[in-house]
């Protein structure tokens, strides 16, 4: 795992908490669907915020493989590395 991941997870956590409809505990391994019960539209809105924060584009097919903040952080890190 890239050593950038923990820092990205921390930033993603901040973005996610700001968007949650109710206060929840969020950890790197938190599953956005099964643990936070987020609807797909809410996840999409979160991803739009992530894209704007890092100024990247995340395709829906790349996103389909991710469920946790850690996995999204890995994806963000890969996109940043390949830019």
């Amino acid at each position, binding site marked *: 795992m890239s050593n950038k991941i923990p820092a990205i997870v921390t930033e993603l956590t901040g973005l996610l908490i700001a968007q949650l409809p109710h206060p929840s505990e969020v950890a790197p391994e938190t599953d956005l669907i099964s643990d936070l019960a987020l609807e*797909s539209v809410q996840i999409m809105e979160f991803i739009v915020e992530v*894209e704007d924060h890092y*100024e990247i584009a*995340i395709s*829906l*097919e790349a996103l389909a493989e991710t469920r946790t903040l850690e996995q999204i952080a890995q994806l963000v890190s890969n996109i940043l590395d390949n830019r």
Partner: protein
Amino acid sequence: MNLLEKFSTLEATHDELLATGTNPTDVVVEQALSPTESIIGGRRTIMAGTNNYLGLTFDQTCIAAGQQALAESGTGTTGSRMANGNYASHAQLEQELADFYDYPYAMIFSTGYAANIGTMAALVGSGDAIMLDGDAHASLFDGGKLSGAAVYRFKHNDAESLDKRLNRLGDQASRTLVVVEGLYSILGDRAPLKELAEVTRAHAACLFVDEAHSLGVLGEHGRGRIEETGVEADFVVGTFSKSLGSTGGFCVSPHKALTLFRYASRPYMFTASPCPSVIATTRAALAQLRARPELRERLWRNANKLYDGLSQLGFQLGPEPSPVVAVRMDSRERALTMWQLLLDDGIYINLILPPAAPDGSSLLRCSVSAAHTDAQIDQIIEAFRCLPRATQ
């Protein structure tokens, strides 16, 4: 996990819905009486959730055209357009659509869903990109998936968000299809098409506009949001199943490449062509749409009356008056209960539960028809007035 285990979550949700005594996905229309009334559960019910915007489903000219086609051409084509299912009336409807939009090329599909996925999948592929409005219809997401292109979302109706994302794509922006709707089906809000088109052009991308809910509804001649805003899109897609009261879909375009989609669009090639009677009623309905602008005037009078009436009752509605009037509910449970109370009171509308609503909310979605009478609109408003108020 075996193949069927994944349905357990769906089954649990379904069971939960049934336990409430309300199943909005299983309403049976026992008899359709008119464009605005049906028998449901043995009682006469006002239909205010049918997308029958111009009320043409019982138009005598359309019915006669369909009956004549049935008698003269039979019940179905039993083949695709590529084989034995290519009838003269299909080509005539395509010519009439091209003429209506004043675009040189037109192509019809067996459903509106097929028109969306068929056009998108033919146009873009691996190595290309699709930039979808965040509130786009499921068929547009499916079209993106079928195409094999990379699919991205931008914030709903936000030209700046689109611009930023196209910038991030770099050279790929010129191989991007920007996909928006003219009038959004859930909240009834219109696309800022001029701004979105300007951004699309600035990046040399292609603009695709789905006018499913705006054909016959917007624009001086009913051509939709493109006409209302004076925008020329690269591809305009729509359906026959709303304002035209039948089934099927179409794409019109200024690009000759559309003629080659007949050899590249699998949802066009590998399905039976529309029945002659469906084509006949669609052609008759398109002629009615063009000849009777008063239908559109009546539709908007009804839409404004319902929007104003519900607004005055204090309901939180979609952002602007339109033939789609969405009423926000503060919870899924309340939406379910209110939907059932309205049905029990003889009013059928659509129940929109998460994740179908754009922002994950629960909505009671009404759609207005030109065929609704003043008394029917009053009755819908009165039924909403009688609903128990939410406890704060």
